[in-house]
């Protein structure tokens, strides 16, 4: 199925690889989980976890639109 996808769904954004919508969503989720885990390990004593969530959601919107 993937091979039959039209080329125009892929694009070159600021990410170092050519991506489609699914890729950008996937990258955003991977980053979101990683940041939350690292935040819980190193930063949660200083800043609450929802700060990480807000930052990651903002980053996700940026990646999905410009990545």
């Amino acid at each position: 199925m993937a091979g039959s996808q039209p080329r125009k769904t892929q694009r070159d954004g600021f990410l170092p690889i050519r991506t489609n919508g699914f890729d950008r969503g996937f990258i955003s989720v991977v980053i979101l989980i990683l940041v939350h885990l690292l935040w819980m390990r190193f930063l949660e004593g200083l800043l609450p976890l929802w700060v990480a969530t807000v930052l990651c959601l903002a980053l996700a919107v940026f990646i999905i639109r410009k990545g």
Partner: protein
Amino acid sequence: MRQSNIGWLFLAPATLILFVIGFIPFIYILYVGFFDWNTNAVDPTLRWAGLQNYRSLVFDTTFLNSLTRTLVFAFFVVVSELLLGYVLARALMADRLWGRQFFRTIHTLPIVVAPIAVGATWRLLCVPGFGIVPYYLKLWFGIDYNIATNSYHAFATAIVMDLWHWTPFVTLSLMAGLTALPKEPLEQAQIDGGNKLQIFWYVIVPMLKPVLLTTVFIRLMDALRSVDEIWMLTKGGPAEATRFIGLHIWINVFPKTDYGYGAAMSLLTLYVTIVLSWLLFVAMTGRKGGAQ
């Protein structure tokens, strides 16, 4: 449009089965991962824990060490199997090799042995005072080999055992891939004056990429969830030298019945596996994402 609908109809049974055996358990594990649930505890009911399991997980040095150890094991195993598998595939495809059908059969036999039997066999081979491996290592090299007390020996034995069990699978895959390669590009490269290394790197490897990618994925995922062989060989010891992540999860989920924490560990392991596979895919295809 009509053709596409018929296609979906044909896919429906497989999709339904995948949904029932794949997606629903995944959602259930995701759900359990947010709860504190230990059937042997004073309160055996599900209690909402939020992110507490994950919070505990990132501070759990035993878990993090297990994860690191598993990644090291997977790296050694996959790289060695790929190199060894390629060499063996080329050797077993050589026209000059006398009795190559016989050697192919012998070489392929370990694949059909059950992992639990492989672990038991290697334990018998390696147990000090009884197995032939410690006996000959002492006789020939003066090494006091003991998988019950020496962490390095146990870890190395786990790697060798996995190599023995799964290299034939890599060999078979690569033999299939090499047999299917077209002859023209190889002849062209020879005419152009390419040496063996250049032909291997610039002609064979790019053409073998789909086979290599599939083989590496299968072996990587298998290596990351080794349990039964290791359990039979060392039971995760000595100390925690061979306690790989699958074994660690099993110990937490079954003897300790800590289901919530076990679910969180499983999900984090799944996350690591998916991310590694994706990175590998991007690196090996040189592209460019998941939907090429």
